[in-house]
């Protein structure tokens, strides 16, 4: 029994932190927030790509480092801690994972090396407006290899080279690859709650596509893909919420009221203890998700759901109570607190809201209960 990362993985994590401490302070996210015209930090993106992290879980024969998912998880945690303003998740957790999961040899050898080198930014286009997308709600169609429809919002849609799009062909759902630089694709920038992570409306007008995976298996594929992404996102969320606790703790020790540190008052002590408990719940759940992802265990859907639920809850709590701990200065634009508050929403929504994952989890538990396997 060994429920921990290896020393090599911990070393990679420490190196990643060192690199990001130097190259990705919160001011990078703030700069994107302040600049209406930018939705990511291109220099940081290149620097991160140069570390090879995008290819951490991509096999060596496709130009990756071929390390594995546990390595990608520790990197994700550090990226989340630094709330990097780059399209890492869209590219590595979504597009690369999708290709690895269901792409054919041709798609793999075409796309994965580019991703590993940082030459291709990916994105995933599923949503078509407010609320939960149901099979009946999809209004994006492929006929004769041409895609028509509107996807909104598409995270990183303004800067991505390639999108994977959920659409119907012959009345059956599937995922399709689209070159977003093709003239048939209209992109419009969307303002976002977390402006350090941009998004777009994508309009497809007879855009040429190629299918990934089998026709009819689009929903199943999205679910498998989202399970995998959920684990990786959970590590980003853990990194973010741990950072919030650190910020709150430092401030509580430095800030005095009535002649003593505010961290000496139980209202603050217990608030931070609650943060710590939630963060540990998130961490333990994420670890189990990492194990399931790495071993391709049948427990993955349940483990991924639990990881996502716990991590979303922890980051929301930590980001809002971090502001509260800071008092007046906490809700000013100049402090970093709100960057994390915004990012906590970005991460908890980008792969579907936690309440959908609770539903997914309980459906699975119900199934297991009917099987008598609990």
């Amino acid at each position, binding site marked *: 029994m060994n429920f921990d990362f290896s020393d090599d993985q911990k070393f990679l994590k420490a190196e990643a932190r060192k690199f990001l401490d130097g190259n990705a302070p919160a001011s990078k996210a703030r700069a994107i927030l302040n600049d209406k015209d930018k939705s990511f930090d291109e220099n940081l993106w290149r620097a991160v790509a140069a570390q090879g992290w995008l290819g951490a879980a991509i096999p060596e024969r496709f130009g990756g480092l071929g390390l594995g998912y546990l390595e990608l998880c520790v990197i994700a945690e550090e990226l989340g801690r630094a709330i990097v303003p780059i399209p890492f998740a869209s590219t590595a957790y979504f597009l690369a994972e999708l290709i690895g999961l269901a792409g054919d040899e041709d798609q793999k050898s075409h796309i994965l090396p580019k991703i590993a080198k940082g030459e291709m930014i990916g994105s995933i286009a599923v949503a078509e407006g407010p609320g*939960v997308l149901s099979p009946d709600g999809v209004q994006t169609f492929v006929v004769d290899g041409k895609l028509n429809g509107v996807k909104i919002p598409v995270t990183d849609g303004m800067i991505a080279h390639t999108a994977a799009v959920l659409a119907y062909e012959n009345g059956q759902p599937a995922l399709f690859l689209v070159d977003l630089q093709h003239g048939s694709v209209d992109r419009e920038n969307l303002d976002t709650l977390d402006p350090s992570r941009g998004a777009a409306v994508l309009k497809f007008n007879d855009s040429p596509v190629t299918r990934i995976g089998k026709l009819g298996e689009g929903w199943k594929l999205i679910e498998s893909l989202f399970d995998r992404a959920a684990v990786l996102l959970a590590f980003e969320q853990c990194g973010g919420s741990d950072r919030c606790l650190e910020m709150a703790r430092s401030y509580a020790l430095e800030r005095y009221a009535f002649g003593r540190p505010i961290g000496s008052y139980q209202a603050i002590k217990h608030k931070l203890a609650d943060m710590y408990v939630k963060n540990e719940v998130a961490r333990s759940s994420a670890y189990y998700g990492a194990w399931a992802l790495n071993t391709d265990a049948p427990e993955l859907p349940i483990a991924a759901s639990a990881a996502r639920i716990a991590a979303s809850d922890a980051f929301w709590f930590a980001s809002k109570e971090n502001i509260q701990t800071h008092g*007046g200065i906490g809700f000013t634009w100049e402090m970093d607190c709100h960057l994390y508050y915004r990012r906590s929403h970005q991460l908890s929504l980008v792969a579907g809201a936690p309440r*959908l994952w609770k539903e997914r989890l309980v459906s699975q538990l119900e199934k297991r209960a009917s099987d008598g396997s609990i």
Partner: protein
Amino acid sequence: MDFNDSPEDAEYRRNVRAWLDQNVPKKIGSTEHEKLAAAKDWQAKKAAVGYGCITWPKEWGGPGGTAIQNVIFTEEESNYQVPPNPFRIGLGMCLPTVMAVGDEDTKKRFVGPAMRGEEIWCQLFSEPSAGSDLGASRTRAVRADGKSDWIINGQKVWTTLAQYSDYGIVICRTDPNVPKHKGLTMFWVDMKDPGVKVTPIRQMSGGAEFNEVFLADVRVKDSQRLGAVGGGWKVSLITLMTERLAVGKLSGANWAQFLDAARRTPGIGGTPALKDQSLREKLADWYVQDEAIKHTRNRAMTAISKGQIPGPENSISKIIAATKLQELSHAAVEMLDQYGIVSGPYLSESAGQFHATLLTAPGLRIAGGTDEILRNILAERVLGLPGEIRVDKDVAFRDVPTGR
């Protein structure tokens, strides 16, 4: 138990309504300047007929009305589109303080113009290192060499309306060698003094309703002192006491907007989100809280109308409302699912309100007393539980440990 007006109050309401119908300004203006002018006109008009400061005594030019009459006027006025109100801090807090401790000349000079909307006031209390702990104010006032004048230096923060204000009341440290509460003194200052610099504070929501105010060698006469030298803490308690009388309502998205949005948003399984029992239970809780705040205020008004002093109702309401606004807006954004990240023009008006509330709610839990301070107030003042152990009470202010 009766929600109807008494015959006298009903008549008052009829008169108010008739007067408003006749007198509400047709034009408010669009620029900040025009709006300010319209606000001043409106206040002057109200003051002329006794609706300016309804509860103020006749001695000071008020009509000496009741708290209930004040509520009635506010209720009726809220049915009209009237100019913004930049007088609330001055008339609600600063002038009552001036009336309580100012000398005759000061009162004569300032009460009338303020009531008639001719002069705007702000309250210079909070400082970067004195938020919840107002008694730790560090802004210094020292005697000018050999004179009775004072020179003020320091920085205030979270000052509402400072950019429009003509005058402000400012709490200063005049003696750092005595325990913190004993070395404070209150003054009024001219906000147009060249030593006063006002800078807006940008909040996480993007708005900037508050200001930083820098005071550099601002010279004031000793006659600008409000209360005794070293008596500033007691004076500030008068100011803060009057704050409790103000009927505050936190603004933000409400349950009705949530219900409306839930009806139109696809939920789990494609049916409207409003079918979701989890969201329905939350809606019920928010409705109950909203109504309870309203009824709690009605109970307070009843007590005031019977001559009792206001209790902790505002603290109760603020604790409930601020947290509720944060939870409601968070749930609403989550209800939009992936679309919840979208901001700006692509959002419906109601979704836009949820986003705005999500970004203002953290401030509401802090400004005007944090959740934690308010709970302490309820525990100590209402329930009579012991106060916090104080390490800063019996030492000279300069020796009190400080952080940043």
